[in-house]
């Protein structure tokens, strides 16, 4: 099942490249590099998330950064009886 997802991801990324790549002309080097980099990053992240779905993401980062403020709000809510 997981390998099927990987195949699906590869298919989507392949179709994207097939559609977009011929539209970029020879002198659009920067665009090509960006396109390849973002697509590659997306592919790696997608495959990673297929195998390790619980990987801490940006939400956990914000939870960590705003812990004291969130704690303060939670106390206020508790006082009002949830």
């Amino acid at each position: 099942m997981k390998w099927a997802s990987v195949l699906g991801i590869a298919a989507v990324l392949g179709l994207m490249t097939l559609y977009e790549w011929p539209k970029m002309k020879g002198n659009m080097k920067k665009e090509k590099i960006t396109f390849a980099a973002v697509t590659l990053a997306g592919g790696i992240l997608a495959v990673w998330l297929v195998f390790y779905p619980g990987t801490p993401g940006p939400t956990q980062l914000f939870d960590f950064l705003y812990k004291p403020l969130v704690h303060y709000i939670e106390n206020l809510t508790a006082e009002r009886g949830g």
Partner: protein
Amino acid sequence: MIEKGKISASQMGKMMYLAITPTAILTTPAITYQFAKQDLWISPIWAFSGLIAVYAALRLHARFPGRNLVQMCECIVGRLPGKLLGGLFLLFNMYLNGIIIREYSEFVIGAFLLQTPLTVVSGSMVLASAMAVRSGVEIVGRFAELFLPAFITLFLLIIFPIIPDLHLSNMLPIMGEGMMPSLMGAFVLQAWFSELITASFFLPFVADQKKVTKSILIVLLMIVLTLIVSNLATLLLLGNVTGSYTYPFLILARYINLFEFFTHLEAIFMAIWVLGAFVKICVFFYVAVLGAAQWLKLSDYRPIVFPFGFLLTLISMWVAPNLQKLNDAISKSVSFAVLTMFVAVPVLLLCLAWGKRRLWGIAAKK
């Protein structure tokens, strides 16, 4: 300039309206109710962060005409820190869009398409938005113009039939515990109002600059009004149980029963929601793609639309393992993060720009 399209001030206003209201109607009443109880309907009035964000976006644009927030960063704080701040802003924008897409797909799956996998719902929405975004700002603006009348008509179509069933006693006592509960309930709404800062990315494309201030203030007022009406209707119909539903407004749509003939009108709500969420996702998607293209000094933003769409779908899977965790994050840490990035950072930039001009002005006179 990458984007050659022009939009009118009213189109920008409509885009901003649809970029905020749909998700605000859907998720906020349940979260706001936890704090505000029967003062639920007063909370939208405290739209401070919306006013601040609008003021910051307009003043910054007056100071740097033709530039958006990401481009301004470089002018204000210097090249390298500006790039860094602009990049952070763009990443955060994409994260927020991931949350929006997730909210949309969770709602569609939770309420209607029970058997469909999450990826299919979010993926098809992102694909549709990507096509609109590829066509440029004019198309997104026209979509907003096209969908807004439908949005408002359908919204009223849900409100009017339930008027006879509303119990005014549910809103009593008004401000029974003073202003505090409604103010605290407004906290989560601030995250939505501060999304008005995305106007900064559309201001440079507006053809009739003189009408911008008026149109954006009218939009802020309209958003507040819509939220008051929807919260009031929810409260008056559901009363004490408002907080126990995930989507209280959906219950309203399900409740409608006209002459034993018009029933199950939640399909209308679904239509509202899909139209609104489409424009909302498009607006944030466009901001991310355009900002990234300008940030990297590309000649065109079109080639990176699809890769970014793929990333957005991924982020929407990544933000939370399930709906409960998602709503919990939205009502707490994500709201703080939104306030930091969309209100505190622009205000800080505005202060810096103002201070810099004062200092340089004095130096030039001497």
